[in-house]
């Protein structure tokens, strides 16, 4: 799977960068000799030292460590004990692990030598592109990559650039896309890419070939990962040669963020999307609204936000949504906006009577809430009011127009309270009402989508996706986002029945679990906390049952519900756990959280922090300095 190119490339390295295996071994011998000499010297001194005042022996030297790659691992030394000064970052990048995240699924070969580069010395040449749109996106994605490099360079304090590392190399990035002229992330998008980085004269040439813009963008992301800031050199370094062949295992790799329980400003969403891009996730599942609030101000139905937002500063305008969608798109991410219905609605739908439309929803903020919904406040659409379907058609049309996602749609559809409807419609089985509502919603969705049903319309798993109701849904039109515990039989039933599924098992991929109850009544919360290792090791599709081979698993999504999370804590809650999910869905390696996974994820976490994401640490910092000693 991996081959080491150092022998091949060694001859081409610059003076500073010549840290090939052989060279490093020589350095170590020298270091050992120095230490031995020092010990001998101090041995001579010991006799008299006991009587000398201590301070005469102290000298104030800055703490400084150097890392050397020995037996495929980076070992920390006191800088004064070695003749070479190498940063942890550079040692990690040049030692045994690929340091890539997510781990590529095809062959990888990386040089063990690095050369200095500068963000402004990167240039782009689009060699082949199927459309002007794709070319434009490649250009923008390239600028995004360059800006990230620039951010890294800002980490250099003052004029610390060491002069002996040689001049920065020029890097020419050549991108070829042969395939879809549509830059959007689609269900049928081929995300594979190949990256080849090699020295050419005094500069470097990178060839990225892909079958879609999204694939090419992933290639740029990988290129960014073989570029790092060396704090000792005060410069960006890049591997001087690399080849990567890569493609994801699952087409749907998502993160859900709930912006209804608590509001998150646009900047928080953008940062989250950028962090997703760093991990090659491709679906930002935006759970915009819920019974607590409706922050999205639609052009066609501004009443929803007027009555539903927490306040005038807790509103996403259409321009905000466009900004988010565009930002996501040049990062290879689709924005899947979910307006959850028919349950999980609230005050936002309370203006019907005032506007002469009758009750759009029932049980709004009804008490006691425990009789009419799963958590306060209650609210459920009125399926018998025809206006609600007009309204939903507008909502759906605006979602499709703004996000430009028309092949996949999320209808919500979880946790309907049968009691709420039973109270208002005692003539009909609430389950029939729910089924009928779903049909009608699907019908207006088709109308909103130009008369065509999206290829995949997702529903949350619920009683509706259980027998005997599941049989009444068409697996050609509906897919299911399965959120029950992985051991629940219904998790398997929808897959066995051939429904395309997105996995979000509560016992593995719910990031909100483990924080206790936010109400006095203590039911309804999940726990414990799902560690990144649990997130990583969850592979529900890897079972032995005969049916599982045919399971139409589209992928998965981590779910960040926000009953107990506000903007200040978002990053540390989501990252690095969602990065662990990203590798599970991209690479799906059979192994669990092995030593190499720790090592690579630790580096990836550092990348996220450098990008301005407040990701939580994996372990004590000493363990980053001495990774193998903590395993």
């Amino acid at each position, binding site marked *: 799977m991996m081959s080491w190119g150092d022998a091949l490339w060694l001859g081409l390295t610059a003076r500073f960068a010549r840290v090939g295996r052989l060279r490093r071994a020589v350095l170590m011998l020298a270091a050992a000799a120095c230490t031995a000499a020092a010990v001998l010297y101090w041995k001579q001194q010991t006799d008299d030292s006991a009587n000398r005042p*201590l301070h005469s022996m102290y000298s104030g030297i800055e703490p400084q460590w150097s890392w050397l790659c020995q037996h495929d691992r980076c070992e920390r030394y006191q800088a004064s004990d070695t003749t070479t000064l190498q940063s942890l970052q550079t040692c990690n990048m040049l030692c045994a692990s690929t340091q890539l995240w997510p781990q590529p699924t095809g062959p990888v070969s990386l040089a063990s030598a690095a050369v200095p580069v500068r963000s402004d010395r990167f240039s782009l040449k689009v060699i082949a592109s199927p459309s002007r749109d794709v070319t434009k996106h490649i250009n923008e994605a390239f600028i995004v990559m360059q800006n990230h490099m620039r951010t890294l360079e800002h980490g250099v304090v003052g004029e610390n650039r060491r002069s002996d590392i040689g001049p920065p190399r020029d890097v020419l990035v050549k991108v070829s896309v042969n395939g879809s002229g549509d830059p959007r992330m689609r269900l049928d998008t081929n995300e594979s890419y190949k990256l080849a980085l090699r020295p050419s004269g005094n500069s470097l040439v990178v060839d990225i070939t892909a079958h879609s813009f999204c694939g090419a963008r992933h290639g740029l992301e990988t290129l960014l990962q073989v570029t790092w800031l060396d704090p000792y050199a005060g410069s960006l370094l890049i591997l001087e040669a690399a080849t990567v062949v890569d493609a994801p295992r699952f087409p749907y790799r998502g993160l859900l963020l709930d912006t209804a329980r608590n509001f998150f400003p646009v900047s928080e969403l953008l940062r989250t999307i950028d962090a997703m891009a760093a991990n090659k996730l491709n679906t930002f599942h935006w759970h915009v609204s819920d019974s607590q609030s409706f922050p999205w101000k639609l052009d066609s139905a501004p009443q929803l936000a007027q*009555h539903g937002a*927490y306040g005038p*500063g807790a509103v996403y305008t259409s321009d905000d949504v466009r900004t988010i969608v565009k930002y996501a798109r040049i990062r290879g991410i689709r924005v899947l906006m979910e307006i959850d219905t028919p349950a999980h609605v609230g005050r936002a739908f309370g203006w019907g009577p005032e506007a002469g439309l009758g009750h759009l929803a029932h049980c709004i903020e009804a008490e006691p809430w425990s009789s009419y919904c799963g958590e306060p406040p209650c609210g459920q659409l009125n399926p018998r009011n025809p206006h609600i379907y007009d309204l939903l058609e507008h909502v759906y049309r605006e979602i499709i127009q703004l996000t430009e996602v028309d092949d996949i749609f999320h209808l919500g559809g979880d946790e309907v309270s049968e009691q709420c409807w039973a109270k208002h419609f005692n003539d009909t089985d609430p389950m029939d009402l729910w089924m009928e509502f779903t049909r009608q919603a699907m019908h207006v969705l088709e109308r909103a989508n130009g008369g065509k049903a999206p290829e995949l319309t997702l529903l949350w798993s619920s009683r509706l996706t259980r027998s005997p109701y599941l049989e009444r849904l068409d697996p050609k039109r509906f897919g299911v986002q399965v959120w029950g515990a992985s051991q629940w039989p219904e998790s398997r039933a929808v897959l066995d029945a051939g429904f395309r599924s997105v996995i979000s098992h509560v016992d593995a991929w719910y990031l909100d679990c483990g924080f206790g109850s936010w109400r006095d009544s203590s039911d309804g919360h999940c726990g414990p906390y799902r560690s990144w290792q649990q997130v990583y090791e969850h592979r529900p599709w890897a079972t032995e049952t005969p049916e599982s081979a045919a399971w139409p698993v589209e992928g998965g999504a981590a779910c960040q519900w926000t009953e107990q999370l*506000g903007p200040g*804590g978002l990053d540390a809650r989501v990252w690095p756990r969602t990065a662990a999910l990203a590798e599970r869905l991209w690479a799906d390696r059979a192994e669990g959280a092995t030593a190499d996974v720790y090592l690579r994820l630790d580096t990836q976490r550092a990348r996220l922090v450098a990008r301005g994401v407040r990701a*939580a640490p994996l372990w004590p910092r000493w363990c980053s300095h001495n990774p193998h000693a903590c395993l």
Partner: protein
Amino acid sequence: MALHRLLALMTTMHLAGVLCNVESTFDEITPQIYEPSWMYKCVPDEGCQRSEHPRPTLSDNSTSAFFDSLDVCRIVCGRFGGIWPKPVTAALSSQTVKIHPNYLRYDLLNVPAETRELLVEMTQVISNNLLAECGGHVTEVVDTQVVVIIVVKTAITSLNWNTDEQYMLDVQTRGGEVSVHIEAETIYGARHGLETFSQLISSDKRDFSDVEHCGLVLVSGAKIRDRPIYKHRGLVLDTSRHFIPMVDIKRTIDGMATTKMNVFHWHATDSHSFPLEASRVPQFTRYGAYSGSEMYTTEEIRELIHYAKVRGIRVVIEIDAPAHSGNGWQWGREYGLGDLAVCVNAYPWRHLCIEPPCGQLNPANPNMYRVLRNLYQDVADLLNSPPLLHMGGDEVYFGCWNSSQEIISYMKDQGYDTTEEGFMKLWGEFHNKALQIWDEEISAKGLDPQPVMLWSSQLTQAQRISQHLDKERYIIEVWEPLNSPLLTQLLRLGYRTVSVPKDIWYLDHGFWGRTVYSNWRRMYAHTLPRDEGVLGGEVAMWTEYCDAQALDTRVWPRAAAVAERLWSDPTSTVYSAEPRLQRLRTRLIARGLRPDAMSPAWCSQHDSKCL
């Protein structure tokens, strides 16, 4: 744009009336254009309730009951308004008066001259906090004069367990002038009074507002008598597992000052790293810091200690020993001093320490004590008088000492068996020698011997502690879980204690292993015994899985829940505390912290509706 909106508003307001009760379809409706601007009503026994309609139509006689700002509703609603921690007694007016910091004056004529400089700094902190309520800029200027008259009876500026922290605070508004009286025995009491005064003030901004306009509103009348139940209200911060930059530590101190906590227990060093610069022993950081920029210089430490003092907080530096010492101590041999610590970074680690990297001081090496003395000298130089040192003392692994031939022969010489009891003697000997060194260094500064703090351990078990540790000298910080009898046993033996039950007040739990997260409700609900021997308690932020990135949300608002438990030890319910804690949360945000959310924002807009 604004004009356009206004015109639209005027036309649609007319239309709205017409459309009522008329059959229409969704497409025919012209939506009214207005912002979702909720108002709040203070409902007795329920708290602040959001209006049902985003633009409530108010009949004239009901307007007074409504507030534009949720924060303003909170400072007058309920018996204790928006004050956290809850004062002993409070009578608050339901009226408010607009104020502006430019017309706020502090009268310090009745304070002893020796304390004035410090008190001026304290008032500056408060004034900055008031500005912070409006994001630094109070746009609405009113010229109501506010005079804060502070009376301090003693000239004491030292901070310890005997410091009198009580205060009286009276606010009166008469004829367009507000007079505020704060009276206290010490400046620290006065500071608490100032803090409470600042908590009678809110910005009049709507929650989730999108406008810059901001004014300050003060409760127009108040009579508050207040004092803490427990003397020791602390927070442990571990800066060894991860380095926490000074700016983040200071922000944590700000949160502590807001909640009237008074002890910053600085777990400065551990086996992982030694970021604390010791001017007499630069090797500690040279061999122990993660990097040249991940350490605290002597100057920074001094500044922090002063920063804390201005906020009524005593800094306790913990040099954990003899276990939890490794990196930073590994240079002895190189300098001809022999092994100062043993099994440093030893691998495999499982029999030598609780978690990697291992390391334990070498009690057989007299040079270790010499270096420790230098370190203690530095700490004594840094700390304010009277200095309080935490000697650590937890999780000693005999397997580590037992792996050193030097230590085993030393024990033989001392006549200690290499049995558990023999190692206990060695351990006890270490603490007593360390204490003697500390006493000598303190006495060299002309000070009486001071008590020191020590974590509970095998050595502090009830049947053993008296043989090794003098109850007059050691204050035991008990971190055993709730079901442990140790705290009660130590109290019976006459030891003074600080309680940090790990299964409830450890802020790092819930993110690793089988530990369980305690949310603020659980932390709040826990009570300590009311006993002379219980000085108080602490919450503990260990940082194996937390660094500056996650710090605020792990600590706040949960530490505040414990702060109130320790300050007022209320008998009232968690449920009745929630609205005040919601107000505290917005206050912490205004002061630059990033506290976690406690519930959906809907619940904070509807007090008592999320039970």
